[in-house]
């Protein structure tokens, strides 16, 4: 799709323009609610850090770093899931079922891929906000943590994947209630079990196998290893799993939109 002219004005219909145009209203929403959002975004990770990182006082882990250094990457991956997923899915759900403004957008000449990606931007931004604030705090509190480009990439990827999962959940939801159910059956267990607060390798193999079916296990594995490169080897295959998971979620969303099964 190229740029066209209407009445002497240029129209911007390129793919990236479309993604930006879809995301714009959500960015305005974020702007209107910035402080509120900021507090909500950092509150729960901060509580987790205090409760698990300091409250439990477990000292040093078996990989040789302090538990705080171990748990901070876990909390980062947790907030990449909970913040990204929740903000994207809640907003889209409201726009689709209550405001009906999602219908308005679907009636406009936009590619369905641009809609999926554009609608993921809110969660991506919020997730990154939470993760990077936590990361900054971690670099300050735990000297073992390192700032690496790979960690930044993993955080962004993880936020994007879970934000798209939020789009998918909102497209499938029949009501606000079904969103809440999805949240407590899938999202909440994931946040606690997937290698966020304890190492998955300490569990027995059957349980491990189950956890490795969940995307957050891979995200937390990647983020932790990228933050602690001196003691952990980076699990490249987990990165691949995460990317593949993201692509599958994207394709399902696009399919749902294209066939109007929404």
């Amino acid at each position, binding site marked *: 799709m190229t740029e066209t002219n209407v009445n002497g004005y240029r129209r911007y219909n390129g793919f990236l323009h479309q993604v930006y145009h879809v995301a714009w*209203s959500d960015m305005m*929403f974020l702007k*209107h609610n910035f402080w509120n959002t900021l507090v909500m975004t950092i509150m729960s990770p901060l509580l987790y850090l205090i409760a698990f990182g300091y409250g439990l006082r477990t000292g040093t882990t078996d990989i040789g770093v302090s538990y705080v250094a171990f748990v901070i990457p876990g909390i980062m991956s947790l907030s990449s899931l909970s913040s990204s997923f929740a903000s994207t899915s809640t907003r889209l759900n409201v726009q689709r079922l209550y405001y009906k403004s999602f219908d308005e957008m679907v*009636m406009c000449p936009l590619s369905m891929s641009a809609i999926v990606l554009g609608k993921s931007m809110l969660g991506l931004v919020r997730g990154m906000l939470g993760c990077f604030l936590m990361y900054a705090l971690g670099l300050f509190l735990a000297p073992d943590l390192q700032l690496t480009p790979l960690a930044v990439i993993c955080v962004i990827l993880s936020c994007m994947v879970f934000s798209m999962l939020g789009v998918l959940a909102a497209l499938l939801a029949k009501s606000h209630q079904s969103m809440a159910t999805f949240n407590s059956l899938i999202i909440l267990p994931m946040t606690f079990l997937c290698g966020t607060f304890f190492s998955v390798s300490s569990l027995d193999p059957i349980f491990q196998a189950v956890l490795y079916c969940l995307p957050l296990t891979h995200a937390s594995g990647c983020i932790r290893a990228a933050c602690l490169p001196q003691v952990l080897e980076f699990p490249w295959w987990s990165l691949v799993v995460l990317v593949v998971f993201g692509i599958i979620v994207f394709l399902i969303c696009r399919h749902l939109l294209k066939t109007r099964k929404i």
Partner: protein
Amino acid sequence: MSEIIEIKDLVKRYGDKVAVNGISFTVHEGELFGFLGPNGAGKTTTVRCVSTLTNITSGTVLVDGVDVVKDQIGAKRCMGVIQQQVSLDKDLTIRENMISHAMYHGMGKQERNARIKELTDYFGLEEYLDKPVDSLSGGWKKRAAIVCAMLHQPKVLFLDEPTSGLDINARRLLWDVVKKLNQSGTTIVLTTHYIEEAQALCDRVGIIDHGKIIALDDPKALIERTGKIAVENMVDGKTEYHYFPSMKDAQDFVADNGLDDATVRKTNLEDVFVELTGKSVGDQK
């Protein structure tokens, strides 16, 4: 006259339920076309099919010569749709709603600012621009929604029951808006279950019931076909209606049958509808 919308054998099923049952009609460029029918007749479903919001079970729909199934994006460029319910984003201001709409159509900053200015002046919306959606009354929200749908200069505008839920004054004001838009060259397809609305506004009216079009013509022709003059008289507590092509025929009928207390009046669209369907619009649900 060229046809801007051509619908052929449109069928839409939801599971076993047939919402639209094989309708065909065309809308001429520049006209104000009315789609009249009771609740549940299939008006909204038809609009949703045409505007690509839902997929079509069978049949074809061409808007400005573009097939809405084969070239969705092309079709979307030439139409604007105002849904039955208010569908503005309530977390944004009116202006932000307009800007995001313009953006969905790829409009750059200059163009969208110019269009928003032009249309809000036209609709008298300036003072509401920076207010949250919910601070506006129903009629003003509707106007804001019309501005959103008009920003990209569509050739056809669909208005799904634009006045349902509005009070009488707001409804009259909105009628003027619709007429004015039509006079400035936009083809308008309007659905309604208010007979007087169809009669007051539309060049041609299609009457839809149970997913089928049962009559389609200009309101005058529909009335003439039924009979221009109506005679109402009570027989055993039940009103009987008779229709006549002229006043003279009606008066002769009254005189011949000695119906001194019968009402003789002009036939209206409601009579046509009742004649065609054997029941009154708005009588159900």
